[in-house]
């Protein structure tokens, strides 16, 4: 048999792909059960209104309708939806609205029918009377006296407030030679995963067991919350996350429909399916971002930042979903970016508005921070007439200063910010570009060069950092089972939905056991099969789940070495795994086939006395700290002053996510992330009008990037491993999104510099840019 290659570090094509490119994957909507019913929801057309009546009689009489329920019908039968993150004011959040509706899309009634068309027909037969109330759309205005109250019982629209001004802050600010104050809007975004949400619930009456398929990133955490809500033991709920068509944080939640379907499947004793329409997805799946920030920065004449103060107004929406109030805290913590900021003070106001709840969306708090600090760097550079690169260099945390505790109190594990910056500058040919830019300006062409040097936080842990109510910590789990035929099953607690861990985890296991990746099957996303796990979010899967896997593999290796050492009569410490054998490290020709060891382990040939039969092990990895990937992105754009249109000329990304298991997957994560980040910079914005009507309720009105809107990206890496896990990996799922938004915004602002324009809020649409240019021209004339 040919020698096996090493798999870690190789661009192995994905093992999940064959089923997906042939149409054989099973997403929630592909699940079909005998006798399955279909649910549809009636949703509020008003942002804020009293519900005077909901008349379901016509819907109930409609042929094929099995049941129709309003919020009142469910009172006392289904508890509030969970928000596990702490906040001063956590409102009741009924699965179906009671008394009032609080955003467009708030669920009012549910209909269950024999087929989906009938269910939707019956929705149209519901007559509901609403008394509209004034809506609160703008988070800043929501705090003004006299603003309509969304939850009257609190007497305020403030969900929570957090403040931090460290001693010495005022002194640090007073040491500045100059200060700048400005306002930044980090607009609300709609995650827009291509597969809308969906749920199938199946109550097996005889077993008193509920099986629930959901398009979720967190099958186990969802199970825990549902068990509470439905009053079932966690061992009586099986949550399956089948193929999941993208999540981006918006499927890291516990939604009304998951609870409703579970509840109704039990009540009706029939399987039920609900599939979200795109309109519902835009209106009633969590949104992201939505911050207005007032920044004050103090700096020396040489560019050194002495102090930053940031006052945030964070738009929570009408209710608090699973982690809604936790997201802004990541923003506050990451404000210092990759810089030695002298001192940081912040105030965060978390505010209710008559809109869908915000929650995690790719980056979850870090893109907001990165945008803040990277725009700040450029503002400081512009004020001082310095090159933005020089201001960054002036403030970088030097590479020999790690582990480094920032002004926000976080400890960064490792970094080489200059290294990534230098590489990106060389790739793009920075100095030459600046010369070209100057020449172009002479010809009336507006080229812009934008830089962002980002750092972000991944793999949040240890467990104490996560809210106890989540019922899951900062750890992750894995089980390795060597089957009697030497094939290996890996059960991971993470829940990949595009990230590719069926491949990268097989690479890790194959190298550890000296076998082929095709001998490994990675299973995930089924709570009846997999040990408790936390799931996939926060770029945690490989750093934490991969490490749990390494630990479980270690336990299995140890047992196999014990057996092999008895069979070979050599000490176990001298053995290695290679080429489907266990061999003597000093002389690999002295070896025993893996299969022989497995046979002994299972006791069907040569059982080893004193060794417990079987060959599997589980491990839970609790990290001692978070990892901090970083990089430099540089965008080169041209702005057409006639139309305000932005065109990409180059995009260079140098990213450092520590060690790389599979470069193909890393590139994919970064490219997709960059597309989403530049989407925020240029195109995307969730818009509600002044009455709280959702304007961006379709893919026509909400502009996610299309193929032509994304440039070809020139990519490279630097590798600065972390010492917080044995793989040295940091995480890469969100880095692209975090680094790209400010980079593109900075590029556009750089292009507009000759007009004297310092800042335009995102998205930088042609119309906005054109207007700003006109205003700047007017101002010059006037």
């Amino acid at each position, binding site marked *: 048999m040919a020698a096996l290659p090493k798999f870690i570090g190789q661009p192995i094509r994905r093992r999940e792909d064959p089923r997906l490119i042939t149409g054989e994957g099973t997403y929630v909507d592909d699940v079909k059960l005998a006798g399955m019913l279909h649910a549809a929801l009636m949703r509020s057309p008003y942002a804020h209104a009293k519900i005077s009546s909901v008349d379901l009689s016509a819907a109930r009489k409609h042929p094929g309708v099995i049941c129709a329920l309003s919020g009142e019908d469910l009172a006392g039968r289904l508890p509030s939806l969970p928000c596990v993150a702490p906040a001063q004011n956590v409102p009741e959040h009924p699965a179906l609205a009671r008394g009032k509706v609080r955003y467009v899309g708030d669920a009012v009634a549910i209909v269950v029918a024999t087929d989906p068309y009938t269910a939707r027909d019956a929705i149209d037969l519901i007559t509901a009377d609403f008394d509209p109330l004034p809506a609160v759309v703008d988070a800043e205005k929501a705090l003004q006296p006299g603003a309509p109250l969304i939850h009257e019982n609190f007497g305020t629209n403030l969900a929570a407030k957090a403040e931090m001004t460290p001693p010495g802050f005022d002194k640090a600010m007073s040491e500045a030679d100059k200060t700048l104050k400005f306002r930044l809007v980090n607009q609300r975004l709609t995650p827009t995963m291509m597969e809308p949400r969906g749920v199938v619930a199946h109550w097996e009456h005889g077993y008193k067991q509920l099986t629930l398929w959901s398009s979720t990133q967190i099958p186990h955490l969802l199970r825990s919350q549902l068990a509470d809500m439905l009053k079932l033991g966690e061992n009586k709920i099986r949550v399956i996350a089948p193929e999941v068509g993208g999540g981006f944080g918006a499927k890291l939640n516990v939604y009304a429909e998951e609870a409703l379907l579970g509840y109704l499947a039990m009540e009706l004793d029939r399987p039920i399916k609900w599939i979200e329409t795109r309109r519902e997805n835009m209106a009633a799946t969590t949104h992201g971002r939505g911050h207005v920030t007032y920044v004050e920065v103090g700096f020396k004449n040489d560019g050194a930042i002495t102090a930053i103060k940031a006052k945030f107004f964070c738009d929570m929406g009408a209710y608090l979903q699973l982690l809604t109030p936790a997201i802004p805290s990541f923003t506050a913590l990451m404000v210092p970016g990759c810089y030695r900021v002298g001192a940081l003070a912040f105030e965060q106001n978390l505010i209710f508005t008559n809109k869908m709840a915000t929650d995690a969306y790719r980056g979850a708090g870090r893109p907001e921070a990165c945008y803040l600090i990277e725009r700040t760097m450029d503002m400081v550079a512009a004020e001082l007439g310095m090159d933005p690169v020089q201001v960054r260099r002036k403030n970088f945390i030097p590479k020999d200063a790690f582990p480094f505790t920032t002004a926000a109190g976080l400890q960064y594990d490792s970094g080489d910010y200059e290294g990534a910056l230098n590489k990106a500058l060389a790739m793009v040919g920075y100095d030459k570009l600046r010369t070209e830019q100057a020449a172009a300006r002479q010809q009336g062409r507006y080229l812009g060069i934008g830089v962002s040097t980002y750092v972000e936080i991944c793999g949040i842990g240890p467990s104490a950092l996560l809210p106890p109510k989540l019922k899951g910590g900062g750890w992750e789990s894995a089980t390795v089972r060597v089957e009697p035929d030497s094939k290996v099953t890996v059960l991971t607690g993470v829940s990949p939905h*595009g990230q590719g861990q069926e491949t990268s985890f097989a690479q890790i296991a194959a190298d550890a056991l000296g076998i082929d990746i095709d001998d490994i099957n990675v299973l995930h996303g089924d709570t009846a099969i997999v040990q408790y796990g936390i799931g996939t979010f926060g770029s945690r899967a490989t750093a934490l789940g991969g490490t749990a896997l390494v630990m479980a593999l270690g336990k299995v290796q140890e047992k196999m070495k014990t057996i092999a050492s008895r069979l070979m009569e050599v000490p176990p410490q001298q053995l290695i795994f290679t080429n489907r054998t266990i061999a003597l490290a000093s002389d690999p020709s002295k070896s025993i086939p893996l299969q022989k060891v497995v046979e002994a382990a299972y006791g069907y040939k040569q059982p080893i006395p004193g060794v417990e039969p079987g060959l599997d092990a589980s491990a839970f990895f609790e990290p001692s700290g978070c990892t901090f990937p970083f990089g430099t992105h540089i965008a080169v754009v041209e702005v057409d002053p006639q139309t305000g249109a932005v065109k990409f000329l180059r995009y260079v990304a140098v990213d450092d996510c520590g060690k790389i298991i599979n470069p*193909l997957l890393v590139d994919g994560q970064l490219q*997709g992330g960059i597309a989403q980040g530049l989407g925020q910079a240029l195109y995307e914005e969730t818009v509600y009008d002044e009455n709280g009507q959702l304007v961006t309720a379709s*893919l*026509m009105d909400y502009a*996610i990037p299309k193929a032509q809107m*994304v440039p070809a990206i020139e990519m490279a890496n630097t590798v600065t491993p972390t010492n917080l896990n044995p793989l040295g990996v940091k995480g890469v799922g969100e880095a692209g999104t975090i680094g790209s938004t400010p980079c593109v915004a900075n590029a556009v602002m750089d292009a507009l510099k000759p007009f004297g324009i310092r800042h335009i809020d995102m998205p930088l649409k042609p119309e906005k840019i054109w207007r700003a240019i006109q205003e700047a021209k007017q101002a010059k004339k006037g």
Partner: protein
Amino acid sequence: MQVKITVNGQPREDAVEPRMLLVHYLRDVAGLTGTHVGCETTLCGACTILMNGQAVKSCTMLAVQADGAKLTTIEGLAKNGQLHPLQEGFWEKHGLQCGFCTPGMIMAAVDLLSRNKNPSDEEIRHALEGNLCRCTGYQHIVEAVQYAAHKMR
């Protein structure tokens, strides 16, 4: 209403409601769930199939409008267990992540390569304008289509 439709080479005859969308016919009547629904409003492209050799969005048509037509879905693309060059390209070049857009993306690309054997990257991006992908950022998709174009020449 009674419709006669050939799906992936198999002639079928089915009774359908006049209002049934073609994509629901494929998924629920013909049992071919590889064609996905991402919007039902002609905007995402997840439901793209070939009708008489041309790409159409199957959420935009009624099943009855396909009466007499020959349809190809993602399930019908591989021949005798041999992947279509586009399927191969998407696999080789990591042209998919969550895979939800992929069947529609591949079908749209089949249409492109039937019209243009030698597309530029720009032409590929242009041709796939009606197909949204939120995961990949499109670059690997462009490479996947180039891979297939090269292989098919």
